[in-house]
């Protein structure tokens, strides 16, 4: 395993160093530096187009970057398929639009990864799937298809689908912003429970500031492709340092 570089003297689970990304000539991420400790929960916010999604999508290589380095759980993100596979194994992702597989039942959505990627036997995968469906409080929907579920239910299934892969890190990209107000709470509750009981490393792009205050260890503010400010939730909301963040907070709170 020579290609997989071990970072021995670093116990941070994600290490992003001087990361830069361009879309053509458009400089979308500028000198991003971010270290995430194991078990740390980070909320990322910022105006639309500031590069929040792009940054967290670099972590499981839904996006490639041109400069800088990114190490996840000791594995460096390079072009080698082995490294990409190893990193994706550790990183689960929940999307704004759920992205469930519409042709598979809820149960099949949940067991697909464990069966085909982790090569688990079917009954074991199904048992795990049912466990997590119970976790997100919809075990009775197992045999339905995604189209038959409400948005909030679909998002909880999507969370359960990621959990079934037993990842070290969970990425959330605006998990509640496609939901009706009454469904937002049921999804946030699941995420809060997850944060408090599993102690999972979480990076969450969201504008739900109450969620940030409740669960985050650190809140990050991005603008124009840069990390402008980061702080504990208390300081972040009470004493914003930059005028840019003050303006942003005054707009969303």
């Amino acid at each position, binding site marked *: 395993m020579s290609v997989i570089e071990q970072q021995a003297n670093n116990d941070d689970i994600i290490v992003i160093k001087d990361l830069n990304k361009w879309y053509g000539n458009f400089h979308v991420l500028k000198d991003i530096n971010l270290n995430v400790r194991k078990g740390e929960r980070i909320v990322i916010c910022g105006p639309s187009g500031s590069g929040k999604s792009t940054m967290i999508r670099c972590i499981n290589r839904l996006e490639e970057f041109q400069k800088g380095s990114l190490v996840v759980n000791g594995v460096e993100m390079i072009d080698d398929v082995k490294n990409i596979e190893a990193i*994706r194994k550790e990183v689960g992702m929940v999307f704004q639009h759920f*992205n469930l*597989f*519409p042709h598979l039942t809820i149960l099949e959505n949940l067991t697909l990864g464990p069966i085909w*990627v982790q090569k688990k036997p079917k009954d074991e995968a199904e048992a795990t799937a049912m466990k997590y469906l119970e976790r997100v409080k919809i075990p009775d929907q197992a045999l339905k298809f995604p189209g038959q579920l409400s948005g909030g239910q679909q998002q909880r299934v999507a969370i359960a689908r990621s959990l079934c892969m037993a990842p070290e890190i969970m990425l959330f990209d605006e998990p509640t912003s496609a939901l009706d107000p009454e469904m937002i709470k049921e999804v946030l509750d699941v995420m809060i429970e997850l944060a408090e009981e599993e102690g999972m490393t979480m990076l969450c792009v969201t504008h739900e500031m109450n969620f940030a205050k409740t669960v985050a260890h650190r809140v990050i503010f991005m603008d124009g492709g840069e990390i402008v400010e980061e702080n504990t939730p208390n300081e972040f909301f009470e004493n914003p340092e930059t005028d840019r963040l003050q303006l942003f907070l005054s707009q969303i709170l």
Partner: protein
Amino acid sequence: MREFKPLPAQPAPVKTQGAVAWLRDNLFYSPVSSIVTLFFAYFFIKYSIAMFDWALLSADWTGTTEKDCTSEGACWVFIKAWSQQFFYGSYIESEIWRINLSILLLLAVIVMSFTLPKNIRLKVTIPAFLLLPFICIAILDGRILGLTHVKTDLWGGFSLNVLMAAASIIVAFPFSFLWSLGRRSDMAFIRSVSIIFIEFFRGVPVLSLFFMGSVMLPLFFAEGTNVDKLIRVWIVLIFFMSGYMAEVFRGGFQAIPRGQYEAADSLGLGYWQKILLILLPQVIKVSMPNILATFVMLFKNTTFLLIIGIPELVQTLQTALSNSYWLGGHTLEGYLFVFAVFWASCFSMSLLSSHIERKLDTDNRN
């Protein structure tokens, strides 16, 4: 506190316009429109009556030979006398059940693809479809199954049109899927080869392909081997079809939201797992109406087989028309019959296709 009481639901209002109102609004809304309407109505009725009389009232229905056609009207006896040839070609009469069996199997698989429970549907019907052409060939040829050997020279008639079209599209299916993947590939070489292939077979008339098939394909086979004419035609049709269907699938791929790829990637699925488990089922589903439309086109194109002397339905009709016992000149009856047979088949396929489209519509609604 005031209690909230929902209003009772009421039935939707019924449209009050009657037939007379409809006629006035659509056909007689001005003096000119009335004249045009009457003018066309006159000719339509006049010729319909003549046609009706010729085709039904004064037609000959009973008998077996030319001499039984004595009236002014159509000689349906001609069609009746040749009907076996029209449907089964010169296939050995006692073995015709084998053709019927093949067609039944085809229908059975089609019905299965609509009625099986959703969770096993693709898993059962895809292999069934892919095996079907080879099973049918085994049944029709007979040698492998220990039945009487029926040479392919004797295969013919409408059943040949149907089975040839079905066998071609089925085998073309996996190929076209690969071509469409190739066309989307990141690798420049694979992409260019796919584009050249697809555009070649889409850009060349199927007739010239048939000629090339009979003349050029033998050059690719080892010397001395005499590959059956029907097999050569089959290969040509498969290539032709896979060019067209590759484009159908490409459209299907484009219809799949990017989120599906991303979800598959983030789960760590490999390339082929992503293609086969996530994309293929969805692509087939959204492409179904286009696949059927392409099939209808291919099905009609099978009549071109007559150009290279394969006795499909139209070729059989021409043989019948030039038969010395039937010199009554039944061209009109013959072509009307062919017209009716093809129209009925194609129309039922388009009904099927619109049924599927409606079903897709409801399936996709969340």
